């Protein structure tokens, strides 16, 4: 596979985000496929961060660990990210006293790195620019190194800074000087294959796609308390609220948020809330209330490594057990995991449908690497997923209702639901154990039946939700993987790569984790001899779940729990060892 990997590094406030955005958009518009990720390491002083962009003429679904080009906007970035460069990689920087850095010299020699140094600060000053504009000089240099056309880059810079016309002129001069510099080593180092077409795609992150999916399927109220990496859903929905008309409310805490969402859902609109693991912990009593009162409820957990504050800006798949087992008592729930922006857009709509049709809480798991990484998707298909509400709405039917229809004991566990006020048949939504009309009961001949009715819904739901999906060959793969969430992306890239080398790999992906579908899983395990579970946690939470729900064993596990996603190279390395 042809893939080029860039890393732009610098301190916060150096315009990293805009440089990343300019590069990504210019590449996207040229027809390349892109994966863009932002890392915010909290261990480096000065709020240091980096933007990584993988691009290719082929579709990309995951990130690489090793980098072809590092563009260092400052000294710290230069030192910190030197080690991520592949042998023979290119380092573009503007640090004047680099000749004093002994380690740099050693590394360059040892690993045959190519240094591209531009006196970026002086160039920026010479046009009347500030130190911030060194980023434009280095961006111009990057384009030269990549051997890409200058015009597309220039257009993108113009678009990015259209609201600052005075500075734009200086920016453009810096950009051009960077591109045309005659410094030693400043030349085209790459031969990038050019895309043949420019398909209509969106460059979008998971949170944005999830928010759009929520708007699309009629979520009219959104409640949240800021918590990384879920916060951008709140920001986006608030910024889009004039377009959507949605009520977006930042509550005083997560308990408030969960209860407001539940109150809105109970009243008959569609409501959504999102948080991360710690915030969800505070909401769990409310999830239990949703289970007891059979009120639809949808909550998004944007996972980051715990326990406690953990690694707030890094990624994880460690809250599956939280989603599965949180909240006191026993009740039916659904757990769904998104894996990319398209699935964010689709699955949030399915989550709403399941919550409303079955009157249950639905937990949607996302991950920092899905939530904040930008990737290319086809424009989402609109009105593809029907809106299913499971509500009694016809006036003739509403008139005929009895209060006891609301929690009527039924075969499938699902009773009728209607919007408060819409029928003379009122009901009590009761957190205490209750009988069919919601009146509290502690009677021996009633409480067990009602308890069972609520849990019976699980069987009905199991019949409704789809089986896990198989990627790659169905049978007899040299090595097979099972996973959920972002595990999918890395295998989507590896399967074709391995196939071209004659290695057959397949992957079973769970979008729906609870109730767990086992038919395809059993078949997959029968048909394939070498099964491994790939998960971003320590304990193998999916592996454990599958073992609990079947008689199968999953001793072969690849677990990663250092805050980073599964990178292409390390999974390839693992495969090499295991086949």
């Amino acid at each position, binding site marked *: 596979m042809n893939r080029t990997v860039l890393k732009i590094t610098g301190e916060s406030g150096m315009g990293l985000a805009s440089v990343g955005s300019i590069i990504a958009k210019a590449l996207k518009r040229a027809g390349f496929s892109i994966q863009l990720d932002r890392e915010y390491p909290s261990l480096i002083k000065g709020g240091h961060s980096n933007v990584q962009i993988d691009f290719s003429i082929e579709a990309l679904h995951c990130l690489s660990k090793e980098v072809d080009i590092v563009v260092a906007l400052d000294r710290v970035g230069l030192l910190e990210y030197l080690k991520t460069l592949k042998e023979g990689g290119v380092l573009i920087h503007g640090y004047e006293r680099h000749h004093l850095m002994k380690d740099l010299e050693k590394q360059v020699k040892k690993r045959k790195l190519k240094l591209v140094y531009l006196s970026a600060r002086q160039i920026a000053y010479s046009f009347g620019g500030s130190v911030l504009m060194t980023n434009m000089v280095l961006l111009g240099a990057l384009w030269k190194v990549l051997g890409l056309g200058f015009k597309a880059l220039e257009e993108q810079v113009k678009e990015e800074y259209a609201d600052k016309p005075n500075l734009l002129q200086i920016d453009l001069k810096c950009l051009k000087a960077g591109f045309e510099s005659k410094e030693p080593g400043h030349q085209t180092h790459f031969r990038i294959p050019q895309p043949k077409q420019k398909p209509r795609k969106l460059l979008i992150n998971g949170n944005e796609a999830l928010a759009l999916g929520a708007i699309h399927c009629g979520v009219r109220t959104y409640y949240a308390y800021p918590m990384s990496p879920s916060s951008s859903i709140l920001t986006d929905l608030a910024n889009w609220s004039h377009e959507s008309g949605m009520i977006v409310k930042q509550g005083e805490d997560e308990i408030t948020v969960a209860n407001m969402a539940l*109150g809105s859902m109970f009243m008959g609109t569609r409501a959504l809330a999102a948080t991360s693991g710690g915030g969800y912990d505070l909401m769990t009593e409310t999830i239990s209330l949703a289970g007891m009162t059979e009120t639809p409820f949808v909550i998004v957990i944007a996972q980051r490594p715990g326990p406690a504050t953990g690694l707030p800006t890094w990624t994880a798949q460690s809250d599956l057990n939280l989603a599965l087992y949180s909240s006191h008592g026993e009740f039916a729930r659904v757990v769904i995991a998104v894996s990319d922006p398209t699935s964010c857009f689709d699955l949030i709509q399915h989550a709403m449908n399941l919550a409303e049709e079955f009157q249950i809480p639905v937990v949607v798991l996302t991950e920092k690497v899905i939530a904040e990484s930008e990737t290319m998707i086809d424009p989402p298909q609109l009105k593809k997923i029907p809106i299913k509400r499971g509500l009694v709405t016809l006036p003739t039917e509403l008139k005929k209702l009895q209060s006891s229809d609301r929690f009527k004991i039924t075969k499938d566990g699902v009773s009728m639901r209607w919007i408060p006020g819409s029928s003379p048949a009122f009901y009590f939504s009761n957190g205490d154990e209750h009988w069919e009309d919601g009146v509290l009961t502690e009677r021996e001949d009633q409480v067990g039946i009602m308890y069972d009715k609520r849990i019976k819904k699980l069987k009905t739901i199991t019949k409704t939700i789809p089986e896990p999906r198989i990627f790659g060959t169905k049978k007899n793969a040299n090595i097979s993987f099972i996973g959920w969430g972002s595990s999918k992306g890395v295998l989507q890239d590896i399967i074709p790569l391995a196939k071209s080398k004659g290695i057959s790999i397949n992957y079973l992906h769970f979008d729906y984790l609870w109730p767990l579908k086992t038919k395809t899983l059993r078949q997959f395990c029968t048909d394939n001899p070498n099964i491994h579970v790939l998960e971003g946690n320590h304990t193998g939470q999916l592996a454990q779940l599958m073992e609990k729900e079947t008689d199968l064993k999953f001793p072969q596990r690849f677990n990663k729990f250092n805050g980073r996603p599964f990178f292409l190279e390390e999974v390839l390395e693992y495969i090499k060892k295991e086949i």
Partner: protein
Amino acid sequence: MSCCQPNPKALKLLVEHSEDYEQFESEEVLTWCTGCGNFGIQNALKRALTLEGIGIQDMLMCFDIGCSGNGSDKIQGYTFHGLHGRVLPIASGAVIANPKLKVIASAGDGATFSEGVNHLIHAVRNDYPMLFIIHNNMNYGLTTGQASATTPNGVPMNASPDGVTADPLNPCELILSLNPSFLARTFTGDVEHMTEMFQAGLQHKGFACIEVMQICTTYNHATPQEWYWERVQYIRDNKKYDRTDIWAAKKAAADMENNINLGILFEDQKKVNFLNRLENRKQINTTPVEEVGYYDISRLTKAFE
């Protein structure tokens, strides 16, 4: 009991609308102790709803946990009986979704001033349009008489055998410090006054907060019915009282020992409630409940092309 003023007009209306009143009457057996203030509160609420012409399909009643919450299935109508301390977020989420229904939230002093005191603060700030009835019986009745944040200092209670050590808070003073749009105080000994206050609260366009000083015959021996009757006075008897003056209200609310003022202590009719503050919904006349359906997102997706 000379201060109790029956309102003949209201009584006449109630008789005329007895059928409306009966729609709320439940056959369920009430589980409160004999003499409990909750009987009077429920009675006054039914009266107020009747007099305001609010029927079963026009409202939602939200209940917290505790003795007050045990009335949730003992009054006919749509009700939600949620978690301890969380009645305000449930009720505010509900009213945001469908402001066409009148939302009434009820909670005790334990829920309001301990478990969920943060929600009270933010509900007042946000001015969510609803009636909030605080059942203040100065103890945790349902868990057998532990101290609450309003139990007087020094009173021996369950789990405080040597007397309560913390200082009590004054609910009305706390709420007034947050610039509410409506605050009233009433007393379970006077059903007619409660009815009048609930009616005023139901008419209010924002967050109508009503502290009901409630008798607890079983556990609150410090402030029984007679204790209140010896101390309560009606603010309407003070002809000079200006209920739009927050400083006057703060003064009127302060005394909980000798002269306890009942009535609408403060009202700010100019305050704009939460829903009317939403800039993005100024041109929208429907409610979120009526709006569920597909929304076109093509203008938003353009930014990602």
